[in-house]
């Protein structure tokens, strides 16, 4: 039923349409046996990869930010990395550090949103954060405070929390002073304190027995938890650079979705995101975050997707600790940006969005006009794994009434924090039982 298209056209992906908005699940059951489970995403296509053609090489950070209002910094950072790669430029360490600091803000904001407003109500039995707040007001307030501090960090460096204006190819338009950043440190100390409480809180949720057997893939770079750079490694021995990604991953269009499905060639499904980062980089976590994880009872062998909520909380704590360290060591760059002169060529870049690895590729002509663009977001990579997990989940719970089956399936999907989880009641379940 999946359509495997041949030739280079398979590689052309609309990164945007498939990751947000609404989806549906279709389940086919024949004589009590699950025949097919399809997660359908019907977010209308927005065609970013098409209209990027003909644009200037300086424009993707602003344009691709608009793919996602929840993780615009991830799009800006992957775009900059790919375009600078095409132009043969490496930004100086102080600019790289400032980018990482900005990205920490997005991790804090995005994870705090998911943990508190989207995911926690599932574990505590509420429809959403609003009715949950009637009985858990303090926890929701704590989550909102944490989210606010993440947004403040993005605003401090990026100008605004959604679609920051200060990011450009080569660096920034204006870099903050040491003094400005130092003044923010107490806010991050407060956030770290809150994050420690959040780890303890979510570790106490009830988790169903559930284990995934996917290949986990995440960036890895010596001496740091992966955010802005690294090679893509996996739990089954994958180890590639950004320019090798295309040779290892194939994307297929399936009839039931505007999102494309990504597979590793000759290996199959794989999973990116917090669980994968955590499994592959546990040793690189800030000691404070590592200790909190250990105390919460999770380690690099964790494979229960329901516990991803704990991993996200641990990553919030890591991002706070890392941001504090980056501020401590911050040196104002000589110039806010280095010059990036255009040249003909192809560039690849990837970074770790809160939801997992996000890959960009641009082909430029000698004047810097974009000839071709390709973007592979985390949700496109995870969708086959999510479907696989859903299939087994439905198999084990085939006797549940439809409404209960739908509710629990939603929770399974939300474990992966796909961009479609913005819509918490996205699952329009149709069960075809014969």
């Amino acid at each position: 039923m999946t359509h495997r298209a041949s030739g280079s056209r398979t590689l052309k992906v609309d990164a945007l349409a498939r990751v947000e908005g609404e989806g549906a699940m279709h389940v086919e059951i024949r004589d009590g046996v699950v025949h097919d489970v399809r997660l359908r995403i019907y977010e209308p296509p927005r065609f970013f990869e098409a209209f990027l053609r003909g644009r200037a090489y300086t424009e993707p950070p602003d344009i691709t930010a608009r793919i996602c209002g929840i993780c615009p910094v991830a799009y800006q950072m992957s775009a900059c990395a790919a375009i600078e790669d095409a132009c043969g430029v490496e930004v100086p360490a102080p600019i790289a550090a400032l980018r990482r600091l900005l990205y920490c803000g997005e991790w804090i904001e995005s994870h705090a949103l998911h943990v508190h407003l989207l995911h926690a109500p599932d574990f505590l039995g509420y429809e959403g954060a609003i009715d949950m707040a009637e009985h858990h007001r303090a926890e929701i307030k704590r989550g909102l405070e944490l989210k606010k501090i993440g947004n403040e960090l993005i605003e401090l460096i990026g100008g605004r929390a959604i679609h920051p204006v200060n990011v450009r190819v080569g660096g920034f338009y204006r870099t903050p002073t040491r003094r400005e950043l130092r003044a923010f440190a107490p806010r991050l100390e407060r956030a770290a304190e809150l994050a420690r409480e959040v780890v303890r809180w979510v570790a106490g949720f009830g988790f169903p027995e559930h284990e995934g057997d996917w290949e986990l893939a995440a960036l890895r770079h010596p001496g740091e938890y992966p955010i802005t750079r690294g090679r893509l490694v996996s739990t089954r021995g994958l180890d590639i650079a950004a320019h090798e990604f295309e040779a290892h991953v194939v994307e297929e269009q399936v009839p039931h979705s505007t999102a494309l499905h990504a597979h590793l060639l000759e290996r199959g499904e794989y999973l990116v995101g917090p669980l994968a980062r955590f499994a592959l980089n546990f040793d690189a976590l800030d000691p404070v975050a590592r200790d909190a994880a250990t105390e919460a009872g999770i380690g690099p062998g964790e494979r229960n997707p329901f516990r991803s909520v704990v991993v996200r909380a641990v990553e919030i704590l890591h991002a706070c600790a890392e941001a504090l360290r980056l501020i401590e060591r911050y040196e104002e760059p000589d110039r806010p940006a280095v010059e990036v002169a255009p040249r003909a060529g192809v560039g690849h870049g990837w970074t770790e969005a809160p939801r997992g690895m996000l890959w960009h590729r641009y082909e430029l002509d000698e004047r810097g006009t974009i000839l071709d663009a390709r973007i592979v977001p985390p949700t496109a990579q995870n969708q086959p794994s999510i479907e696989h997990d859903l299939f087994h989940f439905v198999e084990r719970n085939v006797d549940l009434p439809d409404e209960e089956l739908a509710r629990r399936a939603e929770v399974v999907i939300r474990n992966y924090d796909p961009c479609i989880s913005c819509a918490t009641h996205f699952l329009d379940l149709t069960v075809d039982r014969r």
Partner: protein
Amino acid sequence: MSTATRRPTLAVWKFASCDGCQLTLLDCEDELLAIADAVEVAYFLEATRATVEGPYDLSLVEGSVTTPADAERIRSVRAASRRLVTIGACATAGGIQALRNFADVEEYLGIVYATPSYIETLSTSTPIAAHVPVDFELRGCPIDRGQLLEVVNAFLNGRAPEIRAHSVCVECKARGNVCVTVAHGTACLGPITHAGCGALCPSYHRGCYGCFGPSESADPRALGDELRRRGTDDVDLVRMLRTFNAAADAFRAESTRLERAPR
């Protein structure tokens, strides 16, 4: 609620968009719980799976219309809403996805999808007001949090929102910024762009890129002449006008004129 008064109902709807404008509501961290106390959040899928049947006192609509199904859906949203406010550049101008309006959507489909026939899409991305009457349009890509609170507050209290339609230049002056165009020759859309961001880009030493769309009485042609004298060419001018508000009347008319003008 202990009082007998019914709380007004609020619904938030999404069409083609990035979710950023409805996220702005969740980004009102200090006010969110107070809002949830003051109104009944009757439909807001980004925040809750619980839904209440319409009609709704106030509907906030994010996103543009890009599919036949959405062109139908917006009509039922309108019918179920006493007041309907569109939020953000997608809903008020068609958004970045309206770049298809200047191109061949069949070609776009071929670039992105191996099997375009599986995809149902319209050849244009259009603002909500092109389909149904709209009570107020709040601009921005993304919208400003303070302005969103003002609009929600105004509508729930039956008064007109205090949102000024002058240009970013006014905000820049109020902020005491040095003009980036005059001082550094930086191409800036501030003189023709709707206020609301607080002159963010010039404050970060870059030119305004027009994410709030055209201001009232915007004159893009006059600005183009000025920027051209300072070294911006027509290709760049067209690109500047064709971003998140490309299909807004004043921006569209000028970019189309420039594209057709002999070089």
